[in-house]
């Protein structure tokens, strides 16, 4: 009986304390809201928002609801997170491998990059790119073009907009290419199992991926036109670019800073993964006659990826959370649009902040769960 009490008592006390704290907060919140005449409820989400957002991936203006505004913010966050993850991974993998290069210059340059960008606060880097570096770009009328079709200006990067004719046929061709690649890979694998011959699967896949879409241009009726941005004068001294696709400087600065910063951490993850493979593994693989690229593909990478992927996914999560710093430079992400403008207009602090935090929590937990599942699946079996 004694042991039972020993176990139950502390639990009850902790539970009681937690409940009391929550109760205290809730009670105060209710009192405060009553005093200020604020009601609590999520109904405001269907009201008209009456504010515009500078940059949005979907149709939106002041006549849409707050719920739509939330969606706009969310999509912008996901966009910058996606771009950031893409670029930081590419850069991080290259730098991570470069850190292990026997070439002294390459190794030191990579180390310099990591040490430099890792020790400066991300917010400071974002400010630097947005307020200092991008501000030094020329005005639209003075901008020099890149290849005659793109313009990097202080108002953003203007690139040609793609105008597709029969885009669906083009997409089908890509799907067809992917399907045939899968079929060929299966065939090549069976061929190797049965006869030992190896097909150059990589080259064939690359070829298919290029040829199929190309064919649609020649015989499928697909055509691609570019709408090139054109300089237009809207006032005596102010110009803008019409047509084409305008990428706002906020997005550029945010993506640049996030990628450069997060890439340093990914580089370290990659380096730890590759270094974590003991020399003996490579020696054993070499001693049975495998060639260097085979050693990499069959022995080093499978083991290294197991070490690299969990912390890298953590970095992806950090990047997504860090994208909320967009609020500091007025990029309309979820925090700025919803927990900023919308909250200021409606005053529904508790509801809005709770929705925002819940959104981020969901993203984090989803990725954590996926990571746990992935880890269990590929765990190296031990006694």
């Amino acid at each position, binding site marked *: 009986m004694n042991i039972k009490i020993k176990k139950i008592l502390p639990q009850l006390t902790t539970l009681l304390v937690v409940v009391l704290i929550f109760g205290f907060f809730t009670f105060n919140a209710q009192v405060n809201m009553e005093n200020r005449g604020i009601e609590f409820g999520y109904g405001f989400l269907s009201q008209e928002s009456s504010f515009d957002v500078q940059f949005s991936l979907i149709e939106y203006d002041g006549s849409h609801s707050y719920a739509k505004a939330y969606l706009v913010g969310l999509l912008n966050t996901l966009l910058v997170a996606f771009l950031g993850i893409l670029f930081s991974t590419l850069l991080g993998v290259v730098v991570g491998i470069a850190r292990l290069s026997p*070439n002294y210059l390459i190794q030191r340059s990579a180390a310099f990059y990591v040490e430099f960008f890792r020790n400066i*606060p991300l917010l400071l880097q974002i400010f630097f790119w947005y307020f200092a570096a991008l501000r*030094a770009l020329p005005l639209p009328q003075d901008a020099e073009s890149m290849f005659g079709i793109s313009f990097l200006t202080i108002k953003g990067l203007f690139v040609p907009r793609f105008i597709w004719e029969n885009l669906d046929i083009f997409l089908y061709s890509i799907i067809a290419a992917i399907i045939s690649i899968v079929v060929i890979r299966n065939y090549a694998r069976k061929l190797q199992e049965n006869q030992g011959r190896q097909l150059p699967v990589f080259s064939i896949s690359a070829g298919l991926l290029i040829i199929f879409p190309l064919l649609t241009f020649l015989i499928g009726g697909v055509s691609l036109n570019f709408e090139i941005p054109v300089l237009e004068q809207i006032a005596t001294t102010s110009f803008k670019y019409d047509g084409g696709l305008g990428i706002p400087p906020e997005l550029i600065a945010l993506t640049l800073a996030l990628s450069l910063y997060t890439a340093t951490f990914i580089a370290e993850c990659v380096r730890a993964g590759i270094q974590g493979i003991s020399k003996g593994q490579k020696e054993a693989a070499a001693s049975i006659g495998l060639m260097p690229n085979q050693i990499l593909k069959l022995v080093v990478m499978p083991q290294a990826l197991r070490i690299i992927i969990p912390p890298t996914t953590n970095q992806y999560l950090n990047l997504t959370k860090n994208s909320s710093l967009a609020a500091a430079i007025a990029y309309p992400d979820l925090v700025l649009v919803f927990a900023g403008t919308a909250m200021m207009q409606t005053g529904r602090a508790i509801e809005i902040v709770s929705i925002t935090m819940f959104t981020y929590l969901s993203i984090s937990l989803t990725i954590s769960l996926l990571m746990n599942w992935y880890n269990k699946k590929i765990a190296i079996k031990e006694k």
Partner: protein
Amino acid sequence: MNKINLLKPNKQNLNTYLYSGSFLFFIAIFDVFLSSFFEINITSFLPNFISFLLPLILGILGLHLIRIEFSGIKNLDLLNKNINTSTFNAVLTLLIIFTIIKSISPIMSWFIIDANIAGDTKEACTGSGACWTYIKIWLNRFIYGMYPNELQWRINISFILLIGLAFVGLIPSSKIKKFLTLYYVVIYPIIAFILIYYLISGGSLGLEWVETGAWGGLSLTFIVSFFCLIFCFPIGMFLALGRRSVLPTVRYISIGFIEFWRGVPLITVLFMSSVMFPMFLPEDFFMDKLVRVIIAISLFEAAYVAEVIRGGLQALPRGQYDAAKSLGMGYWKMHIFVILPQALKLVIPGIANTFLALVKDTPLIFVVGLLEIVGMLNLAKTNPKWLGFAMEGYVFAAIIFWIICYAMSRYSQNLEIKYKTER
């Protein structure tokens, strides 16, 4: 086939190839050097495109000529194995060397040669380089924020005292060693709090009161970092122990707490602390901005510290727990004397990382209206008398943060090595 063989050195014609290869290589570097530092283009008689690529081509050719697998000359072999193993490697090496040479000149001229530091006003910055005058004039604000100038001696005294007291650990007396942990974990923070409350904040003992909104700059960065570090560590430790507890309620509450704080961005937490938090407190209970921020950041970082310490606790072999239990130690004794000392040593790099992240997160407090050094920079650059010097400000702050963070990470690496060898 023969032509290619002609261009490859071997033991007989090694010297000729060595000389000609090195000559080409150095010509290439010399060309880049001249064009970058003195803007002399010795190949201007060639069309633009070729003139631009010429150093690269010469360099590749030069390195190709000296690429020999085994020559017997120690330094040559070292060079070849290192930067010249293949054409691809050689190209990368050349590109890196060229980039370094090309960037030294503009960086030097911006930082030093064309920069200004004398004078008092914007007009004094006549050069095309950095206007360090701007930094010089604003330096006071960058360090002390909006704290009244004549009262800044209070901040100085507090910091000098605190730094001095931090080195108590170096006193070799053995009597003091016993109390060191107690000192650092309890006494030192209390002294710091007293200093901050009475000296920096003031309001009693005859000192004028300075509201926390006026604090700012680097001094605020230090104050916030210091207190958050002190609080997040013990909270994190308790959370880590709680997460591994056998009591389900304690465990689930810890997990919930940790996962919540780790799942949300810090900026939303700070938003919450300034907007939502007052709603949760009784009407007339006013909590100072700075206190709110410190509580918010401490709780936030504590969740990360908890995960790091949990890693250490898990890594300890079960035998340690078994041995301590078999000696009759209870839960707390076992953890304080056996488990935690070892686990903490294991995770020094992880904890150092979290501390570093905390220091790098302090600029976010601009959200609640407190201006530490980055906030002061943003304020300064909008001053109408000093427009257009954003770059200088950010570079200055970047240098300061870089030094602090780099020093911290070096120190933690040293700690790690020191504790590794002690095992």
